[in-house]
């Protein structure tokens, strides 16, 4: 079940939001409403659902309503219409006290400009959420310290925020968001204020943390590379509406419309696509078979080399047609003409890393999964097709 579900969530800024919401229902556009009623549609009937443990990225340019949308989820901004469900519970009908408990226990937040309290030390900042809950001092110190350790800032607990660099300050922000162990973490452009290099470190760190914690994260960003890097699902927003929701691959490969297409056309695909996207099925043969059988296989399947594997699909090496016919003439076994020096990659290897492997070897790169089984092979043509964004040329592979 989805942990968060938004149904036609709408926010209108202006003197009579309900009226404008009714007009939206009638199918009026944002521009028309602005022109006729002077009211601004911040978020226009956004619907989505977020599965537990997902990183759900809401992406859009500034003014697209993404920061408003994330604030509708914990009612920092009160929605005009629509529904937010948390584990099936209606967030919008919560009383003030219920909402306060929801914010204290279930939903944490990290802010773009960190929003650390300047008069409190690092540890006092991190424990703020626990303090307002009334957790006793010793216990909350302990929990806050754990959270601080998680982001690698133990030893800094008695410093003040202004003494820390931007990256460190946002780690404090992250630790504060995590300290009360919420089910959901909202991250509003959390890394946008950081230098590019530090931003990348923070993204890596977030992914690493996420692999341990399995939180549900709603991540707001205007940076497509960031969205593709960390998102399990991406919702692309424009003018307050969600234009497309999908996995990074879907957004890149099947853009829903011209807007998304233009948005993604400059993406460096080599940093997004992985070996598993472009690999093809490997033609295999087991070691017990002889050169004659190998040649026959190649002829049948129209290939010039075969991957030699054992019964568990563990790769042993490659046999080419040339070597196989050589072996046949000289009466050698397959084992004796086998090429064992084969370039290998994991399914998660990015295309730009595959380039290097391929330039060093005449052979295709074989893709080996975590179970050491041969998953497929990557040939040069498929990589180039992938970079061109041409998904049809990449098909015929076996996405193991």
């Amino acid at each position, binding site marked *: 079940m989805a942990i968060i579900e938004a149904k036609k969530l709408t926010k209108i800024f202006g003197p009579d939001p309900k009226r404008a919401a009714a007009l939206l229902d009638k199918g009026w556009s944002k521009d028309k409403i602005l022109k006729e009623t002077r009211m601004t549609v911040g978020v226009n009937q956004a619907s989505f659902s977020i599965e537990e443990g997902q990183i759900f990225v809401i992406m859009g340019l500034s003014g697209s309503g993404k920061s408003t949308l994330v604030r509708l989820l*914990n009612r*920092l901004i009160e929605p005009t219409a629509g529904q937010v469900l948390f584990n099936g519970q209606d967030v919008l009908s919560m009383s003030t006290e219920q909402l*306060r*408990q*929801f*914010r*204290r226990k279930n939903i*944490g*937040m990290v*802010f773009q*400009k960190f*929003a*650390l*309290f*300047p*008069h409190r030390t690092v540890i006092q900042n991190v424990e*703020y*959420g626990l*303090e*307002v*809950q009334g957790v006793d001092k010793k216990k909350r110190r302990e929990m806050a310290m754990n959270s601080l350790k998680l982001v690698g800032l133990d030893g800094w607990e008695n410093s*003040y925020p*202004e003494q820390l660099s931007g990256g460190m300050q946002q780690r404090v922000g992250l630790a*504060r968001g995590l300290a*009360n162990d919420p089910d959901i973490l*909202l991250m509003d452009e959390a890394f946008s204020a950081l230098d590019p290099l530090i931003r990348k470190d923070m993204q890596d760190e977030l992914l690493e943390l996420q692999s341990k914690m399995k939180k549900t994260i709603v991540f707001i960003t205007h940076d497509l590379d960031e969205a593709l890097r960390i998102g399990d699902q991406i919702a692309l927003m424009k003018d307050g509406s969600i234009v497309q929701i999908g996995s990074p691959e879907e957004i890149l490969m099947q853009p829903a419309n011209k807007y998304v297409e233009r948005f993604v056309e400059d993406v460096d695909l080599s940093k997004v696509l992985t070996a598993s996207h472009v690999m093809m099925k490997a033609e295999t043969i087991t070691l017990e078979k002889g050169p004659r059988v190998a040649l026959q296989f190649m002829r049948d399947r129209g290939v010039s080399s075969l991957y030699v594997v054992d019964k568990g699909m563990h790769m042993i090496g490659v046999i080419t047609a040339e070597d196989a016919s050589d072996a046949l003439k000289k009466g050698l076994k397959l084992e004796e003409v086998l090429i064992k020096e084969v370039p290998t990659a994991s399914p998660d290897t990015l295309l730009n890393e595959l380039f290097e492997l391929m330039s060093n070897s005449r052979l295709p790169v074989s893709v080996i999964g975590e179970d050491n089984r041969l998953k497929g092979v990557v040939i040069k043509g498929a990589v180039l097709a992938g970079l061109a964004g041409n998904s049809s040329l990449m098909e015929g592979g076996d996405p193991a």
Partner: protein
Amino acid sequence: MNIPKIPLSKWIDSLEAWLETNLDPLFKAIRLIIGETVDGLESFLTLFPSLVLIVLFSALAWYIGKWKMGLFTFIGLLIIDNLNLWNQTMQTLALVLTAAIFSIVIGIPIGILCARSEIAQRIITPILDFMQTMPAFVYLLPAITFFNLGVVPGVISSIIFAIPPTIRLTNLGIRQVPEDLVEAANAFGSTPSQKLFKLQLPLATPTIMAGINQTIMLSLSMVVIASMIGAQGVGEYVYRAVTQGKTGAGFEAGLAVVILAIILDRLTQGVIRKSKVR
């Protein structure tokens, strides 16, 4: 066309008379509280020999400010003592401190109210403007009616004249707390009072202290006016020198006010600086 004059003065006079007859117990209570506070402070300040207090004040000034501040306080207070104005100065200090204490106790909560409610702010701001621009002599008169002659009406009119900066700057200080910090406090589920005490007041403290500093300075500026209705202290000496045309005596008493003003100002400024460390 002859438009009759609005009988504003009659209305005010009858309002005053009505208040005097109907709210007398309240005025008695206020008189008692303020009178006791001034008396208590005054007898405390005159309990010790002047030299002991001079050393204590100088040490305090040194602790809050720098050594220069301590030295100035020491010399300044010695001069006052030398001019035989010590007891009068302590009476004045008692009056000023009482006015300041009540201004803070009343002003900060009103300031907080203004910061939280647009309606309260819209009602209270013009009242503060009125209090600060109406010539202080004018509210001396009802103060005498309600509280008799003496130090109490002096303190009351000092409070009326001096309380606005504390209210205004408390309001301003809280409103100046950055929006994203308030949002963060909300996002973590703070109650309004948790937000106030854990975030807004601590961050507003330097601004509130600046308001308190202004309040103290303004109530000091009221001491001469207060002396006209019977408040004792250096103000009384200034007033007497003016009416008798004694320039030298007036200068001596005036100098004591100046010295006291500088010390109180630098002390509160020092406290502001300390509260601004973060």
